[in-house]
């Protein structure tokens, strides 16, 4: 199919709608084109091919660069969502555990902040009741016991101070009275005397009482290390009279105070 520049111009004029299709066919026929319709179709297709190739080339270029960029992003390690179902099942438990942990932590924080020697002393203090079964040496000692029973601690202390010879009982009652009278410095050596005497003689009289109230006295006077040591000793002896008073929680809080 022979064409020249004039034919090309006719075809291009038709593509731009500068002339009608009928006019184009007529003129092409006049130029000797055997099948003007076929030539027009071929020309249209050629132009379409040129344009489509350019569009496709640019779109393909963008497509590839876009996919490359997004593949890089999507190829970065992603945490597997495979455990989602089981997570959903355990989630309420985890939530409850988290709540409990928060509560426990809050409670511990509260305890930590509010634990001090005075409230520990108040918590651990146990009123002592005289054992009426035990025999009493003489009338003075008898009155001392009675005063003690009647919580006349000043009288107990006065009586004790007049005694020239004292047993563990008088020492203990007097020491306890001093403790009640806030005379810790006088109470402590009496408790220690009892323990010292028992250690030397092998006696067990007022041993547990002296240990426990000495520990309280040490705590009350701020001698934390010595107090902790004594409470630990009690804690380590299940047969100790005051063992049940000193649990691990007491030891823990005494350690906080020590710090």
């Amino acid at each position, binding site marked *: 199919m022979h064409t020249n*520049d004039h034919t090309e111009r006719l075809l291009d004029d038709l593509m731009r709608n500068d002339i009608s299709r009928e006019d184009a066919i007529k003129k092409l026929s006049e130029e000797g084109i055997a099948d003007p319709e076929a030539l027009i179709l071929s020309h249209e*297709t050629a132009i379409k091919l040129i344009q489509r190739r350019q*569009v496709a080339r640019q*779109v393909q270029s963008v497509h590839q660069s876009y996919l490359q960029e997004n593949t890089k992003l999507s190829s970065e390690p992603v945490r597997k969502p495979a455990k989602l179902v089981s997570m959903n099942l355990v989630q309420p438990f985890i939530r409850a555990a988290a709540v409990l942990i928060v509560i426990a932590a809050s409670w511990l924080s509260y305890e930590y902040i509010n634990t001090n020697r005075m409230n520990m002393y108040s918590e651990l203090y146990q009123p002592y009741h005289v054992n009426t079964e035990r025999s009493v040496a003489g009338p003075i000692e008898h009155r001392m016991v009675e005063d003690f029973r009647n919580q006349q601690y000043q009288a107990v202390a006065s009586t004790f101070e007049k005694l020239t010879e004292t047993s563990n009982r008088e020492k203990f009652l007097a020491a306890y009275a001093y403790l009640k009278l806030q005379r810790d410095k006088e109470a402590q050596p009496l408790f220690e005397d009892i323990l010292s005497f028992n250690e030397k003689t092998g006696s067990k009289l007022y041993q547990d009482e002296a240990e426990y109230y000495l520990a309280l006295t040490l705590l009350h006077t701020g001698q934390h290390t010595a107090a902790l040591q004594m409470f630990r000793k009690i804690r380590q002896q299940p047969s100790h009279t005051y063992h049940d008073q000193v649990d691990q929680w007491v030891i823990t809080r005494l350690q906080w105070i020590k710090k």
Partner: protein
Amino acid sequence: MNMRADVQDDLLKALQMSDINKPVRYIYDQWFKEINALLIMKGASPDDAADIFQEAVIVLVDKVKSGEYRGDSSLKTFLAGIAKNLWMFELRTRQRREKREQAYQSMEDVQTETRHFEKDTFGLLNDIMSQIGETCQKILTGFYYQKKSMRELLQEFDYENEQVLRNKKAKCMKSLRDQIEKNPSVLHELKPLTIYAH
């Protein structure tokens, strides 16, 4: 999210230009993920969806350039419609292929009908254009795609005068038409865009 009217107008103007890299990139950034998700919901694999999206963009640009897009719907809706139609066409093609496979038990037929643009058409267009030589490609692309005048093209090419360039261009077009006649399948490949019309 619908595109603002002024943004859409700018995009349409940009797509009318010969260099469409930026507006096409904008289309990818804005709508690739959403339309791909739509295609995947309709049964396309991620690779299929990506290929279909690319073809849909080519059709969209073609429709914008040819003035067939009249703005009756937003560009995004228009593009999504083209993509859906392309995917439906692809599904029907595959179904026909499967039926043939079942009927003839022949794997050879599988090769005869694949999706158009990305795998076959682009290669065919390149093959045809490469037959007419690099100079002809540049002249015809300059004139018919970049819409350059003969005077502008004369400044780019070393020809004595405009008439010589016109004669060269006429020869290039004849050569291209001859190649198209030798590859009649390209008529089929270029025409079917109408079936994707939204």
